[in-house]
Every structure is written in structure tokens, then in C-alpha cells.
């Protein structure tokens, strides 16, 4: 009897319609966990992430995985095709291409990481300033428009022409060439957010401009920045490889992918694997970043 009664009470307490009416707000997962959920459901984005994961693990663990030292020459096995002894073949000095690709990946991914970090830091800062402080906007945007008027790769080549060839200079050139795209996107986003009523509202609370920018505007424009950074990551790797291929970036014998494609180009008839595999590696990594970037765009902006 008493058991029945307590059951009844419990049943009354959890009466579903009453609950629903009393709490109009049910705790829902935060914004970022929803984004993550959407991203994990996106198959192409996950494919991109998987490619990048494999490459990253390969490059990080290069010393363990690589079967040969990158500069070990072996004249007996020169230009040996892909096979059991050398997985992806050897180059004209008999160096193992697979090992060189793993180490070269470190350079490429690091190039991408550094250029994206530096370019986004500078670009976002300039974009935020241009968007929020209208006084400075015209100066910043005019410089950016001049940079944008030149094709990025041509601009990078011109910068290297001044600085001299080399991987560091190539990175500097890429950073300068991609900054305008950050500035433009960030400025446009800031312009739309700064007119929002909640920005007016926090200004009415007596919050400093700097704090408003950092804590109220920046978090609201993160999604386009994240998407751009992801896509630019691939773009920077491609640009670095292109510059190395042209002999302006990393110089042989550094196993940079673009430089490897360039070296292999001369032997395309006899040893196609010398160019094809580094080229394939570049393609796959850039593809990975683009797929992930597209997926992120959909996940961050589900409209």
C-alpha cells in the first residue's frame, strides 16, 4: 500500500506536461559541442581529417617509421622502382623516397602551420582594427587592396626576388601574400558585428573598446576565421611547394615535397616515382585541408 502511494507521488512529480510547462528552457549542449557533433557527422570532412591525421602521424613519427636515413645514398639501388626494398622507390642518388617524403612532410606541415599562424595573427589584428576604428580603415584597406591586386604567387615570387631564395624567405613571402584575405574577411565580419545591439549594450555598460573587441566581437567572428585558416593551411603548403618547385623555396637536397617534384622532373621518363609520389603527397594534404575546411564551414554555419 505504502509502496503504491510513494509510486503515485513520484509519478505525480515527474508528470511530463507539467515539467515542460514549468521549465521553458531545457539545458542544451553548448555551441561548440554542437559544432563538433555536426562536424563528426560530415563524412567528407572526416575523410579530410583522416588524411591529415595519417600524414601528421607519419611525419611526427618519421624517425621511427622511416626505413632509411634521408640522405643515405646508395648507387647500387639508384632509381629503383617502388617495391619491397624501397616502398616508393629511390631517386637518382639512391635515396629512399618514402623516408624522404616522411621528413619532407614535416617541413611542409610546419611551413603551413607557421605561415597560417603568423598570417592569421597579423591579418586578424589588422582586420579588427580596420573594422572597428574607422579612422585607420582607409590606410589599412588601401595597402591590402594593392596587395590583392597582384596574384598571390606572383607577389610571393616578387618578394623572394628581393629577399633571395630559401625556405624562410618563401614563408615570409607567403605570409605577406595571404594577409589581405584575412584582413578582408575579418573586417567585413567586424563591420557586421559592431552594429549589433549587444555591442551597443556593452558600450553602455562602460566597457573599454579594447575589451569589447577582444571579448565581445572576436568570439563572434571566430567561425569565418577558423574556416579560412583551415583552407589557407592547405593553400600555404601548396604555395610553399610551388615556390620550392620553382627553385625559390627550400633548396635541394632538403627533402621538401616541391623540391622533390622539381628534382624528379628531369627523370620523369626513367623514374616517374621520383615526382609522382611527392606530388601525390602535396595533393592529398591540400585535399585533406580543403575537405576539412568545407566541413567546418557547414558545421559552423548550419544555415
Amino acid at each position, binding site marked *: 500500500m505504502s509502496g503504491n502511494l510513494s509510486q503515485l507521488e513520484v509519478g505525480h512529480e515527474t508528470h511530463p506536461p507539467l515539467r515542460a510547462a514549468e521549465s521553458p*528552457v531545457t539545458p542544451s549542449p553548448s555551441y561548440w559541442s554542437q559544432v563538433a557533433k555536426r562536424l563528426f557527422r560530415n563524412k567528407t570532412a572526416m575523410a579530410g581529417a583522416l588524411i591529415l591525421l595519417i600524414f601528421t602521424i607519419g611525419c611526427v613519427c618519421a624517425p621511427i617509421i622511416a626505413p632509411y636515413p634521408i640522405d643515405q645514398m646508395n648507387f647500387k639501388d639508384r632509381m629503383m622502382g617502388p617495391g619491397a626494398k624501397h616502398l616508393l622507390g629511390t631517386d637518382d642518388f639512391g635515396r629512399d623516397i618514402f623516408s624522404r617524403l616522411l621528413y619532407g612532410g614535416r617541413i611542409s606541415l610546419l611551413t603551413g602551420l607557421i605561415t597560417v599562424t603568423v598570417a592569421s595573427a597579423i591579418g586578424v589584428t589588422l582586420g579588427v582594427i580596420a573594422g572597428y576604428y574607422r579612422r585607420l580603415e582607409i590606410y589599412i584597406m588601401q595597402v591590402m587592396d594593392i596587395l590583392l591586386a597582384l596574384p598571390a604567387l606572383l607577389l610571393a615570387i616578387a618578394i623572394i626576388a628581393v629577399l633571395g631564395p630559401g625556405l624562410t624567405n618563401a614563408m615570409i613571402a607567403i605570409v605577406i601574400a595571404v594577409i589581405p584575405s584575412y584582413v578582408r574577411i575579418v573586417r567585413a565580419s567586424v563591420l557586421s558585428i559592431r552594429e549589433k545591439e*549587444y555591442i551597443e549594450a*556593452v*558600450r*553602455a*555598460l562602460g566597457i*573599454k573598446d579594447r575589451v569589447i573587441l577582444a571579448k*565581445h566581437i572576436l*568570439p*563572434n567572428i571566430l567561425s569565418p576565421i577558423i574556416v579560412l585558416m583551415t583552407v589557407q593551411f592547405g593553400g600555404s603548403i601548396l604555395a610553399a611547394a610551388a615556390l620550392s618547385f620553382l627553385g625559390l623555396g627550400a633548396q635541394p637536397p632538403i627533402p621538401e615535397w616541391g623540391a622533390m617534384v622539381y628534382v624528379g622532373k628531369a627523370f620523369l621518363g626513367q623514374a616517374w616515382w621520383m615526382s609522382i609520389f611527392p606530388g601525390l603527397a602535396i595533393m592529398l594534404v591540400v585535399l585533406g585541408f580543403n575537405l576539412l575546411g568545407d566541413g567546418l564551414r557547414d558545421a559552423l554555419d548550419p544555415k
Partner: protein
Amino acid sequence: MKQNETVLDIDQLSLKLKTERGTFTAVNQVSFQIGAGETVALVGESGCGKSVTSLSIMGLISKKTGELGGSIRFKEKVLNRLSEREMREIRGRDISMIFQEPMTSLNPVHTIGKQIDEVYRLHTNLTKQERRAKTIEMLRKVGIPRPESIVNEFPHQLSGGMKQRVMIAIAMACEPDLLIADEPTTALDVTIQAQILDLMNDLKQTAQTAILLITHDLGVVAEMADRVMVMYYGQIVEEADVRTIFANPKHPYTIGLLQSIPSIEEETSRLKPIEGNVPILGEVQAGCPFYSRCDHAVEKCKSEKPPVVLTGKHSVRCWVYQDKEVAI
């Protein structure tokens, strides 16, 4: 209620807005006072200069877009002479503001608690725990259920009425001396409107906050205000206490406003709207700006600026009352 202490004293405030088409006077020699604990309504159509007046008081009109004249005295300080830094101290602590659109007035990326906490962090020296306790207490004061869990929620999880309650909590957090409410209930549905107005009245009673209520809703005015100022084309055209305005409106514009709301007592087949719109800034060069829409306009109205006619505490800016009392 002690009402003799003047909190806000605005004297000959004028604001020239610089636009691409030229410079226009958006606020024209506006003077008024608000006493402690008093609610003053600023009424008018869209585009008559209500909101820019409030933004001027908050010092939120940048020097680049507008040029302020006259003086805005808040207690002992002249606000329009203060530096940006001194003004920031006052905003949110001594004067705060509630905005029209609760749906967009909260930052979507921060939790409710964080947004209230920000005010305390800025204007008080409380510790983190004290601030959190204050935040929850404030949410409870504005009638938010389960404040302990709401502090951790994001604005999109709240309804419009709840968001406006949060906005009020933010505005009232430091018990300001003056609260500027810019159409606080316009975006809410009617039942929620009444709740929000009640809430504002309650908070006013306990904190002795003076309220400048900006609205075009005369129902809200009747409910809330002690005194009413009617604004038209950047000027205050009529000012009186709330009973007088509703019982004995003088300015043809005020009469028009009152006629354009439906009444329960009288049965009229049609409402009488005021024809036309507020003139765009710069359109009126001379005379009374209401001339083109006024039923009582005379030749003089076209060419000469109407004077302020004062009878007791009721002032009106109209030629009709210049020498004689005319019943209209």
C-alpha cells in the same frame, strides 16, 4: 517618495548629426530635468530624435558623427565635458540603459552569468564568489526561475521576455541613479510587456532609480510615467505631468497621437491617424515642423518658429496658445 533632488538636468541640448548629405540638427535645444525616483517619458514617432537624445546622455554619439551643444548635468557632473574614461566609469554604474530588442541585446557567445558578472567586475571590487552570488541574487530579483542554472546558459536558450529580464538585471546590477529605457517593451508580447513594466516599477521603488522612458506606446506611458515630454522633429513640443497630458493635451501633435490609439470607452468606427510622416532632417527650414500635418495651422506657423507657452507646469510649443486659450 523624495523627488526634489534633481538627478539629470539637461539644458539646451542640441545635436548636429554629420551625414553624407550634410549636417542636420537631430536634437534641437532640448531642456528637461529628472528627479530622483521619478519616471519621465519621452514620447514621439520614429525618427523624432528620442533615441539620439538617450545616446547623447550616455555619451555614445561619437564626435565624428555628431556635435553636441548645451549641457547634460548628471548630479554634480557635466557629462558632455567628461573624458571618455570618466564617462566609462559612469556608464553601467550610475547611468545604465535597457535596449529595445532583447533578442539581440545579449552577446550570443557568452553565458548569461558572464554577461552580468562583467558589470560587477568592471564597477565593483567584489571577489569572484561574491560576484557570482550577486549575479544569482539579481537574476532572482528580476523574476528568473532557477537562477543557479540559468547563469550557465546561453542567450539563445531563453525566451524574449526572459532575455529582457536579464537585460534589466544587467542594467540594475549596480543600482544606478538613472535608468534609460529605450522602448523596453516594444519587442515583447502584451502579457510579457505588463510583467516587465511591473518589474521596472518594483525595482524603481526599491532602488530609487530615476527612469527616462523612451517609447511611442502611450499605454506604457500611462502605466509608468510621472511626467511626459512629447518630442517632434528634435524638439520637445509639449511637457506636462501624465494626467494633464491625457486629460488636457494641447499641442495638435499630442492630440493627434492620443486620437490615433483606440479607446475602450468611446466607440469610434475608425481611428484618426496623423497624416504624413515626420519631416526628414533638414527638410524644415523655418516655422513649425508640424505645420504640414497640422489641422490648426495658420499662416504664421509656416514662417515663424512657435514660442514655448507655459501655463503652470504645462508647457507647449505652439502658436495657437500664444495669446489666448483656444479650445481644440
